[in-house]
């Protein structure tokens, strides 16, 4: 088929520009790190311990999350009850929950002075301690059990309803249904869920910073931070950054091989009618399990809310200043994410006749899934150090890195939406001579408002709650709210910390809600 020559339109140029920026941020920083690491010493025993711990906690976290998620997803798939939709929505919430808020909540429930320790003290047990491996794994499971449950629930929903009808007619019980229908599905879905969670836990920083530490519970990501912040040993930080990049690359390659399922599938509200597992034991078992899961997710947050409310009025001014700084960073990061996301997605859709180029742009957009914020931060520091004061740039750098980290999720929402507009209204727009900026303003933008609002909400909430690069760069006057909260915790000012955690939780959820809502209001078509 003859093809009209495509000049490099402004839209395509923007897309390639965005890709270049992302490549510089992810791979460019690695080059900077590698260049700096040359002169460095070899890895010491502590570094090897960090590597082993990183892999071990990620493996444990992924295994426990998936093992619990399978029965939880099965219970959700085969039961219909009031509040089921709310519970499924709740399972999506940890994604936008600031890590440090959850850690504080988990401490209030499972910590030395927490709820559970208080309950078992009269029995002569405890107190519990969740510092170290068990705490890191507990927090990782808190975040990833819901994700695993949603991923596996999607697998259950992918089994056609007709199959369950046929199974019921043939008189299959739960055991036969498990063997003929459910286990084949799990074999396809579980490896992907496991790999996704393993990859997430490999880059665990905030959890390890707050609950880990010490020679026995330091992740590589945390070791980079410590080499950088405490020893200011750039060479060792760089070497560790290379190790971390290698770990991420291996985990990402494994995830690619087993094909990670998409986290935001539609149609989870649907229930499939089932005729098996109607026995009392099954029903009570499912109910108990779901209650435990919901309690595990809600109780820590309830503790933060209950404890924080009283502390809120007396919070020091520094907390509110940090909150304003975080809001500014979150909004800037959201604007960047949307700008990069729209530029990349538009270029990818335009390049439909050039699948290789489109695929390359898409891969660049998703690259940050496997990137480590600490590695990017170290690289940026090395690059910026000779020309500018990295500390002065702490907030802009944080906004930029946050934008890159939430871009994959934005792209996942934007690419299908923009492709759909182009396929449905592309010819009409062209035939009416609507092109360029006019077309974007009049046709594309109004039609992608929903996914755009969703992407903006995710991006704002993720940035608001992020405790990562900022810890590397900031001095005390420039703390974001999560960092300020961490400092309060480190100073054992738990009351103020809980108040700040409630503030952070409310701001993160409010940002998500406002943007997501903004995308829906008035879209009647």
């Amino acid at each position, binding site marked *: *088929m*003859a093809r009209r020559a495509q000049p490099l339109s402004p839209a395509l140029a923007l897309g390639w520009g965005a890709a270049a920026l992302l490549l510089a941020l992810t791979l460019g920083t690695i080059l900077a790190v590698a260049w700096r690491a040359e002169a460095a010493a070899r890895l010491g025993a502590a570094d090897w311990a960090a590597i082993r711990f990183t892999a071990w906690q990620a493996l444990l976290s992924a295994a426990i999350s998936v093992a619990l998620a399978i029965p939880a997803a099965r219970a959700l798939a085969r039961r219909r009850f009031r509040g089921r939709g709310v519970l499924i929505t709740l399972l999506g919430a940890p994604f936008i929950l600031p890590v440090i808020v959850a850690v504080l909540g988990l401490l209030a429930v499972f910590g030395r002075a927490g709820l559970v320790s208080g309950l078992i003290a009269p029995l002569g047990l405890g107190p519990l301690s969740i510092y170290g491996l068990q705490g890191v794994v507990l927090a990782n499971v808190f975040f990833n059990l819901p994700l695993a449950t949603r991923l596996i629930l999607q697998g259950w929903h992918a089994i056609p309803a007709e199959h369950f009808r046929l199974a019921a007619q043939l008189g299959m019980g739960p055991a036969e249904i498990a063997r003929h229908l459910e286990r084949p599905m799990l074999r396809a879905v579980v490896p992907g869920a496991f790999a996704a969670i393993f990859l997430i836990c490999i880059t665990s920083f905030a959890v390890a910073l707050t609950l880990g530490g010490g020679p026995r519970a330091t992740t590589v990501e945390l070791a980079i931070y410590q080499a950088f912040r405490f020893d200011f040993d750039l060479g060792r930080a760089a070497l560790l950054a290379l190790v971390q990049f290698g770990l991420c690359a291996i985990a990402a390659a494994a995830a690619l091989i087993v094909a990670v399922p998409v986290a935001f599938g539609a149609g989870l509200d649907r229930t499939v009618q089932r005729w098996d597992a109607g026995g009392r034991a099954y029903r009570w078992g499912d109910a108990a399990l779901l209650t435990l899961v919901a309690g595990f997710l809600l109780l820590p947050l309830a503790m933060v809310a209950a404890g924080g409310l009283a502390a809120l009025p007396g919070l020091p001014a520094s907390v509110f200043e940090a909150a304003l700084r975080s809001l500014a960073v979150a909004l800037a990061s959201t604007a960047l994410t949307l700008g990069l996301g729209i530029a990349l997605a538009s270029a990818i859709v335009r390049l439909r006749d050039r699948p290789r180029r489109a695929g390359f742009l898409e891969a660049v957009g998703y690259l940050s899934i496997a990137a480590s914020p600490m590695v990017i931060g170290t690289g940026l520091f090395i690059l910026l150090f000779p020309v500018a004061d990295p500390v002065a740039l702490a907030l802009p750098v944080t906004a930029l890195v946050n934008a890159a980290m939430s871009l994959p999720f934005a792209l996942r929402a934007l690419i299908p939406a923009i492709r759909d507009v182009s396929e449905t*209204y592309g*010819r009409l727009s*062209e*035939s009416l*001579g609507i092109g360029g900026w006019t077309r974007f303003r*009049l046709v594309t933008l109004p*039609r992608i408002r929903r996914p755009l609002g969703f992407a903006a909400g995710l991006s704002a909430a993720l940035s608001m709650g992020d405790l990562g690069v900022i810890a590397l760069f900031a001095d005390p006057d420039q703390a974001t709210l999560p960092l300020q909260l961490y400092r309060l915790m480190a100073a054992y000012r738990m009351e103020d910390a809980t108040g700040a955690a409630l503030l952070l939780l409310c701001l993160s959820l409010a940002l998500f809600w406002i943007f997501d809502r903004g995308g829906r209001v008035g879209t009647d*078509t």
Partner: protein
Amino acid sequence: MGLTLEKLLIEIDGFSIAGDLTVATGRRVALIGPSGAGKSTLAAAIAGFIAPARGRILWEGRDITALPPGDRPLTLLFQDHNLFPHMSVADNVALGLRPSLRLSAAEGARVDRVLDRVGLAGQGAKRPGALSGGQQSRAALARVLLRDRPLLLLDEPFAALGPALKAEMLALVEEIATEAGLTVLMITHDPADAERLAQETILVADGRAAPPVATGDLFADPPPALRAYLG
């Protein structure tokens, strides 16, 4: 003169359609043939969405083969999605005048006039979703009037309407075409449509678009390919 397809050949993924014919200015011509014969492909090529493998497309002797779709002297009405659902009916129509939608007062008045002309007076502020199928077709035709391009291509835009509404729309097309002196090319699979609107008919079958023949003559003595289609 009118519209000339000069030794035109379109190829897509192993499928091809050829045409070498002229449609005289001001004529209303039907394109009829079995589905999958390439009627829509032909229209898409004339409208500029598909580049032909060989040959040229001319309007009044001017080569338009390489022009982008928006610059061609024609308006194409699609089978569906002729209106943007998120814009008001008036905005949808006004796009035919100014794609930027920045209208002067005089231009706004023109939009109102064409809405009035197609029987949609007072409906301009509504969204297309609030209109009936027939009214949506009227809005699309109002835009044809504003665009003021000499050639109108209809790719079965009324296929989803019932018989009475479809007859009404074809009558409106005939009125508008006569008033504005438009040349009309209408794709259809229904011989009754052709007989109602078109003075001439082009048979599209077996990978080829035949030159136009007077519609009455064609159906009175159908060639084998048309006979096979009519059954």
